[in-house]
């Protein structure tokens, strides 16, 4: 599988059979002072994010921004059309008839928020990302099915192959694999 370029070590991954072992391992590794650690699970495991997620982004804020853009943009579009650039005098009724603009304002608020939020969430997660070194580990295909993984990256200042491997072994994993990048 290794191509022309030389494969270099990206990290060490450990595989667990159930979420309890994963949580214990994650806690142990983070307590040992590792920072470039990530966990991979087939479904969201409660409490894992509190241990391991270091950069929690404000997804909700993106929704809010999208909603504001959609809502304000929608409202002023209608006001601009019906009140300024294309005014129609219907028996002297006011041109700035804002109550009739509310339904579309609401719809565009939801539309803006949903599109910004959904795509913003993907962007925060760095998706789409077709390649990741973990995909080189054959057993990693179980991470989206039934097994739980922890990855410690070489970039971690505390990373030291033998010591890190010993630490991972203490956490009772099923398998420990070297993860290569090339």
């Amino acid at each position, binding site marked *: 599988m290794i191509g022309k370029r030389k494969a270099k070590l990206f990290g060490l991954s450990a595989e667990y059979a159930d979420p309890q072992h994963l949580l214990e391992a994650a806690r142990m590794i983070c307590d040992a002072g590792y920072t470039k650690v990530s966990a*991979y699970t087939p479904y969201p495991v409660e409490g894992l994010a509190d241990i391991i997620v270091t950069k929690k982004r404000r997804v909700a804020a993106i929704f809010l921004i999208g909603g504001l853009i959609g809502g304000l943009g929608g409202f002023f579009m209608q006001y601009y059309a019906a009140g300024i650039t294309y005014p129609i005098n219907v028996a002297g009724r006011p041109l700035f008839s804002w109550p009739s603009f509310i339904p579309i304002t609401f*719809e565009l608020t939801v539309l803006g928020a949903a599109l910004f*939020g959904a795509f913003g969430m993907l962007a925060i997660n760095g998706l789409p990302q077709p390649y990741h070194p*973990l995909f080189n580990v054959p057993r990693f*295909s179980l991470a989206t099915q*039934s097994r739980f993984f922890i990855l410690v990256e070489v970039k971690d200042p505390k990373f030291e192959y033998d010591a890190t491997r010993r630490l991972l072994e203490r956490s009772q994993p099923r398998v420990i694999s070297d993860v290569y990048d090339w």
Partner: protein
Amino acid sequence: MARTDEVETVENKEAKDALAQPPVIGPGYDFVSITDKIASIVQRGTPVGWYLGFAIPFILTMMLLFAIGYLFAVGIGAWGVDIPVAWGFAIANFVWWIGIGHAGTLISAILLLLHQKWRTSINRFAEAMTLFAVACAGLFPLLHMGRPWFFYWLLPYPNTMELWPQFRSPLVWDVFAVLTYFTVSLVFWYIGLIPDLATLRDRAKSKWAWRAYGFLSLGWRGSADHWHHYETAYLILAGLATPLVISVHTVVSFDFSVAIVPGWHSTIFPPYFVAGAIYSGFAMVLTLAIPIRKAFGLQDFITMRHLDNSAKILLATGLMVTYSYLSEAFFSWYSGNIFEAYVELNRIRGPYWKMYWILVICDVIAPQVFWFKRARNNIWTLFIISILVNVGMWTERYVIVVTSLHRDYMPSAWGMYSGSVWDYATIIGSIGLFLALMFLFVRLLPTISIAEMRTLVPGSKGSEAK
């Protein structure tokens, strides 16, 4: 939240059995078997029955295309619409289809926010049902325009005529509501699918399947960071979809209630329409879920508890709709308005009395059997009543559209309406299109959310004692 503990421990299970409702998942499942069971529906070879089942909707879809082609060739006169009944089948079909879509969003968004764990196994296909139903619904206003190639005139865009849509009109609100609804439903559905698409990618046996699911899953790895942001986004999307779904049918009802036509001009229309939408949508969920769980052996995931709950929702929304019918009848008399009173009497005993009484039998009387647990736990009763409710709800929209228009104020302007053969070909064809899309969906995508089902497995919570 109290319901989640039903599946948790073996020790106190027996003690609880006497009190607990049937669980939301059959016994003995773990992460591997759940994944296998749902993903293998997509990954094993196409069963012969699928081709047989797909053939009929496919032929009906071809009939729809033919009917649309004929309509484009000869114009709107191919249909039965005329003055005074200019709306006819097309608008009844539109309201019916869009109403069916509403149950999908109700299940996926509102029940998620209410922590109803039982929704998990039915939300995916209910959301697909929403998308396909809204797509079918969207066809009808476009076809009904007469000159459908000018559909984009409905949208605000810079144009050389310097014209704008009339933003004070409910018909323009409707365009925005339906397009937003479709887009948000699609985004919500797709975001929910991403982890399962990654599962299919990682289980793919052929190169093409690996490529296709790999492309669609965007490189999802299920990292804790991903899940953290994903769950927040999914929850907020559910929060957005909840008022959206209510707004959509409210706006659809404005198409009627803002007009001064007797029988339409009523403040009860928005809640009446929303209740009716959820009613017909849940009926369609049952109509689809019963054959799907049988055909693919999903009785352990879509359990009797799901069907029982859906029947209860049918009963509840059916009573709300019944209340609306009674309220309409009462206020047509209490208003003292002779035109309103006439429309109601005309519905009951006028030339369209048969339609009105089909409506009463299917929508008001039929679901009353769901007061009895035996009826709610009988597959055939559920299936037949769900189809009756679908028929009844279509009839309801027909009655609303046609009986109000055909005799409004001036007797000299009265007229009669009936659908032409092309009207029937279009509605039956659209049902074919809807079913054909459902068949493709169950073949190509996981019918049940695998990632969410895993959270129902005993021991799936990391915090539990081992």
